[in-house]
């Protein structure tokens, strides 16, 4: 573990193209695609972990970073060859539907996405804290040798974690595509960058920090877009990111993890 995955956003993109293909070829609604893509995304993650990352345990941290960056390039260019460079999207009937809550107008898709995110967070929380396997994941991330010595097969934990990560990325892409445009090489890095900002803001390896970092990034971007200028939307988050890191290099909620 302790892998910074620089192909994270490209799995979101894979999810987006999956939803587009299943919709145009088979007429599947993205929510139906989701059910199929979750297990397939998990399998993809497990296979990639076994093929690439499992060969890189006990090596300097930069190696996994380079490996996932390489993976990112492969995914991007494969998608480029298959789908071309022009932006695609997916028009579903409820794509622009909204509901009014008092003075607020909310997009149905964003409500659904938000609801799924809440379910996922609750699920991960329960899994990590209240199941044996979840405790094994936490143990492995805190001390791999210690985990091995109590009998945890940390290789299978690594595969599990990467599988879940890829499955969730793919799911995010499927849920969001009715609202966004996707291109093979640009969309992925934007998501990766945001994910990176969010995790670093929260303190690497800190789940609650990541949630707080995500909320903060979203609010900064939206406020900047509304009150300063819409054109620089992506920049506001990065500016805030730099400012915060200058003041708190360990992230907003980061603690320096002591080794014991």
């Amino acid at each position, binding site marked *: 573990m302790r892998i910074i995955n620089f192909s994270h956003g490209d799995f979101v993109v894979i999810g987006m193209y999956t939803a587009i293909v299943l919709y145009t070829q088979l007429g599947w609604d993205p929510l139906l695609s989701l059910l199929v893509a979750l297990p397939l995304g998990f399998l993809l993650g497990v296979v990639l972990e076994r093929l690439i990352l499992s060969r890189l345990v006990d090596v300097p941290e930069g190696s996994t970073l380079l490996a996932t960056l390489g993976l990112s390039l492969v995914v991007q260019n494969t998608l480029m060859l298959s789908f071309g460079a022009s932006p695609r999207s997916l028009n579903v009937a409820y794509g622009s539907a909204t509901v009014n809550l008092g003075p607020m107008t909310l997009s149905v898709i964003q409500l659904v996405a938000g609801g799924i995110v809440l379910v996922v967070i609750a699920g991960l929380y329960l899994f990590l804290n209240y199941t044996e396997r979840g405790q*094994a994941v936490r143990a492995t991330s805190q001390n791999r040798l*210690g985990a*091995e010595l*109590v009998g945890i097969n940390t290789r299978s934990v690594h595969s599990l974690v990467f599988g879940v990560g890829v499955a969730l990325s793919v799911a995010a892409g499927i849920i969001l595509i009715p609202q966004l445009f996707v291109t093979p090489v640009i969309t992925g890095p934007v998501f990766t960058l945001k994910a990176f900002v969010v995790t670093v803001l929260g303190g690497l390896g800190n789940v609650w920090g990541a949630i707080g970092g995500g909320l903060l990034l979203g609010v900064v971007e939206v406020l900047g877009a509304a009150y300063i200028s819409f054109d620089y939307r992506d920049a506001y988050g990065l500016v805030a990111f730099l400012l915060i890191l200058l003041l708190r290099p360990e992230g907003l909620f980061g603690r320096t993890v*002591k080794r*014991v």
Partner: protein
Amino acid sequence: MRDVAHDGRDRSSEDYSSENSAGRTPADRGDPILQIDSVDLGYDELLVVSGVSLEVYGGELVGLVGGNGSGKSTILRAVSGMIQPRAGRILFGGRAVGKGSPHQMAEMGIAHVPMGRQLFPNMTVEQNLALGAYLPEPRKHRAGSLAHVYDLFPDLHGKRKVVAAALSGGQQQMIAIGRALMLRPKLLIMDEPSLGLAPRLVKEVMQAIRLVSQTGLPILLVEQNVKQVLQISDRTYVLENGKLVVEGPSKQLMGDEKIRRAYLGL
């Protein structure tokens, strides 16, 4: 410095343990739980350990001492299947130790208190201990094992809701030992548990090890600290540059003038 001519393969009459078998001799204890039989060990080109034989019998506390780089951890790596002997063999419970990952050692019933403790720093004392009983068999006995560990180390009970990182070095060592006991192992192996601890805490940890030994669990204790080990162990092996140079009942080694001068600085 050689006090005993010993090549490990041929246990001759010069062997301390056979020469002066006072008190608890291995002979009347049946088969050893761990039997290291004249092994050569190394890495790539490098031969680190040669002709080492060592046994741990039921209920024994056996010390393996030697200076930094003498090959102690290499022997433990071979016991846990992380490296394979180039010559000789290692039997655990009468069966050869195969090649494998550390987690398979736990499945076989060998608990390891590793160098540097290797706790889960952001988990509570109790979560650390509970994870010691992660495997299906020990998990069935988790509650009982936990009570047993708290019995041995009452200090841990008072701190059970505190994260491991917040405890003192000595208490962290208790957690590491306690976590190993949760496995309900057949053999306990410790790699330099006193490393980096203040002298007062070293005494505390040695007492804890003695306490665990008195429950009947066989222990192989690896240390640089010869004096401390001789005081609590039943038998001790002394390793120098990958070869055994002295072995015997700890009481006898303590009383031996040559050994006191060479290894204890007395």
